[in-house]
């Protein structure tokens, strides 16, 4: 087989990142595909070298094909394109238990647009906790610049209970804003929540920052680990 086909298959399998027990079968299947294609092209009168490059081109870029062949939900999935899916997922789009990316969806998610149970990002939508430039938390705590949540804490806060610079809510406390009820009438569970949070706004910020740093460090470690794996397997890919 031509060296170009071997090299291509090597690169596909690096990106596929399969375990040693199923990698050979996947490689053999793709190899058979490429060789059959080359034979077909040669039978059509295409010179052998051109046939090899045509077969590779028609099969697709090694990165894209390899990513497609990855396991369905591995422990760590780091990708430079497409959607990463894994326990820890990092990519332009990421879906995972811990997801990080331009658009991230996960139990813990952070990114440009983050959605999940606990979300931190430019625009963060967290079912329980959302923190970011714009943050939503329908049944939990939203913390950030412009926030909307059951308990909203931020520059501009809108919520059932809102605390902030400008606070608008059923019960609201802020420099300016609007409250439907006097704070004295706040029901006990919310009062407890507010009493707990209000004196510790700075601490809450620190906790969010801590979570952000922890998740960021974890995902950066995953990225470093992936790049290192690729660099060791094929240094030319690390430059791509």
């Amino acid at each position, binding site marked *: 087989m031509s060296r170009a086909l071997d090299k291509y298959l090597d690169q596909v399998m690096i990106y596929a990142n399969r375990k040693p027990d199923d990698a050979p079968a996947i490689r*053999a299947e*793709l190899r*058979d*595909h490429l060789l059959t294609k080359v034979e077909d092209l040669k039978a059509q009168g295409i010179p052998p070298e051109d046939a090899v490059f045509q077969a590779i081109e028609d*099969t*697709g870029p090694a990165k*894209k*094909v390899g990513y*497609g*062949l990855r396991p369905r939900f591995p422990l760590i999935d780091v990708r430079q394109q497409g959607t990463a899916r894994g326990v820890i997922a990092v990519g332009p789009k990421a879906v995972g238990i811990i997801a990080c990316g331009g658009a991230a969806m996960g139990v813990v998610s952070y990114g440009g647009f983050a959605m999940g149970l606990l979300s931190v990002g430019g625009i963060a939508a967290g079912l329980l906790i959302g923190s970011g430039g714009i943050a939503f938390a329908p049944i939990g705590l939203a913390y950030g610049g412009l926030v909307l949540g059951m308990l909203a804490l931020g520059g501009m806060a809108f919520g059932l209970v809102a605390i902030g610079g400008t606070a608008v809510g059923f019960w609201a406390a802020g420099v300016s804003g609007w409250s439907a009820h006097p704070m004295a009438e706040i029901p006990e569970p919310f009062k407890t929540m507010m009493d707990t949070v209000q004196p510790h706004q700075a601490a809450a910020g620190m906790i969010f920052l801590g979570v952000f740093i922890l998740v960021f460090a974890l995902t950066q470690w995953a990225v470093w680990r992936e790049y290192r794996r690729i660099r060791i397997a094929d240094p030319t890919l690390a430059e791509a």
Partner: protein
Amino acid sequence: MLKKQTLDGNIETILLAILRDGPSYGYQIIQDINTRANGLLRLGEGTVYPVLHRLEEKGLLAATWRQGDTGRKRKYYRLSPKGKTALAANIEQWHGLTELILRVVINPARQAVASSPL
């Protein structure tokens, strides 16, 4: 030429349908799709294998390795009973969808005339 987004989620049905005619292998499956699609669709060849593997994992396809006509070992896929059931269900859904698109999107005026009282 159909856009990839239009096909999302339906490549599986296309592969199942191709294998309805009997066992086949990746390259031949792709050739069959391209022939039958007659220019309406061109699949990225490398993207077909992940879908075949997924169908195999789901139990909709069964696969065996055997000697191909080239002398190389080759992986052949065939529809499993579960795959046949899934294909039948998908075809039924597609008949319904095709009918809906025809009535509502492609030819709404004729449908209105046909259903109006004389």
